[in-house]
């Protein structure tokens, strides 16, 4: 049971890190395809 709980905790930690990292990297299509001439928000 401990391994399951640790696994779930790891999923949460990795997912949160991915969410933070991806947003810091500006991965969204909105950010990637926006420019001086194109506004997508």
């Amino acid at each position, binding site marked *: 049971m401990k391994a*399951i709980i640790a*696994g779930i905790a790891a999923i949460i930690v990795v*997912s949160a890190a991915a*969410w933070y990292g991806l947003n810091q990297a500006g991965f969204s299509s909105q950010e990637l*395809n926006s*420019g001086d001439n194109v506004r997508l928000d």
Partner: protein
Amino acid sequence: MRALLCLLFFCLALPLAAQETDAPPPDRSATGGAQTLEDIIARQRGEQIDDTFRRENVGDPDSAAGIASQLGTLGGASDPDLWRALRFNSADVSVSAGGDVAKVLVQDGGMGWYQFRQGPLATYGGYLLLGTIGLLVLFFLLRGRIRVDREKVGRTVTRFQFAERMAHWVLAGSFILLGFTGLFVKYGRDYIAPYLGKDFNAALLLASKFVHNNVAWAFMLALVVVFFMWVWHNIPNRTDLTWFAQAGGIVGSKHPPAKKFNAGQKIIFWSVILLGGSISMSGLSLLFPFEMPLFAKTFGILNNLGVPGLLGLADLPTALAPQEEMQLAQAWHAIVSFVLMAIIIAHIYIGSIGMEGAYDAMGSGEVDEAWAHQHHSIWLEEVKAKQKEASTAATPAE
């Protein structure tokens, strides 16, 4: 994996093959070379027609009339010629932003992708999952739970260390989350919105997308860890043949000898690694739209290897619009995911209610020696030999 590739080749290349084997094109002199009523009706019937008479009919700037002559300002291409060029993605389009993606103004492949997604993918994907569950229920009713034949001895042996179990549960937990959220996205509009409302469905799908995009990284990480952790134990060997010959002890009363993993578990392992790896690749391609095109290159390699020819098909297309790359990535992602989900459902069955004592291996990590002897006899002997060796070394000589 090979079967899946063949299926995709078949789906993609069938239209091309059909075009090549079609009868000579009909006489279009009455329409001046434009499409005829027969062409339109054939298309409406869903038949594949050779469209080169339209695809290549996009004007001829080299023989344009002089600029002061009649129609000279059109530059050798009429408006219909221009629209055909846009339609078949051969027009010389300039855009100020958006790159190659924005240069595609008309992309009719989207309709085929949409129909595939709404039709065969949804139907056969659903049948596959429900059929797998149905077969397992039937199997359970016929075979019952696989019990430990001998009486349990009460002594346990460590089957999986904590790190192994944790990596397994990261992979398992993330896969279950990815599976459910993927199914919500696929079937939500058809099966959730009508009953629970569009607002609920929209909120669920938005949350699903968030979970899917982020939990995917835990899955990929665990996939790599599990690969390196267990690959050595999953290399096929001679004992696997005995396992297959005795149907793994699942049918009948024999219990074939096995090392740490038996042949059935090796199938699960390689399915997870190969299909999971393929899903991860296509998933990354979807997560970073238009930045990781996979299919044009893959098709080029397969064409060079002559794979489509072996299947009696024409070469696969290697000039794909960015949007087509995304459509293929999405279709592939979903097809392989359905197959892996079906395999994992069977794995969950045998690891829980299907076999007595199987859950303990991944739960506490400790299994009864009677269970270990029945299912992994060679591995048990190896473990006991190591234990004996360790205790001998620890005991000082008198």
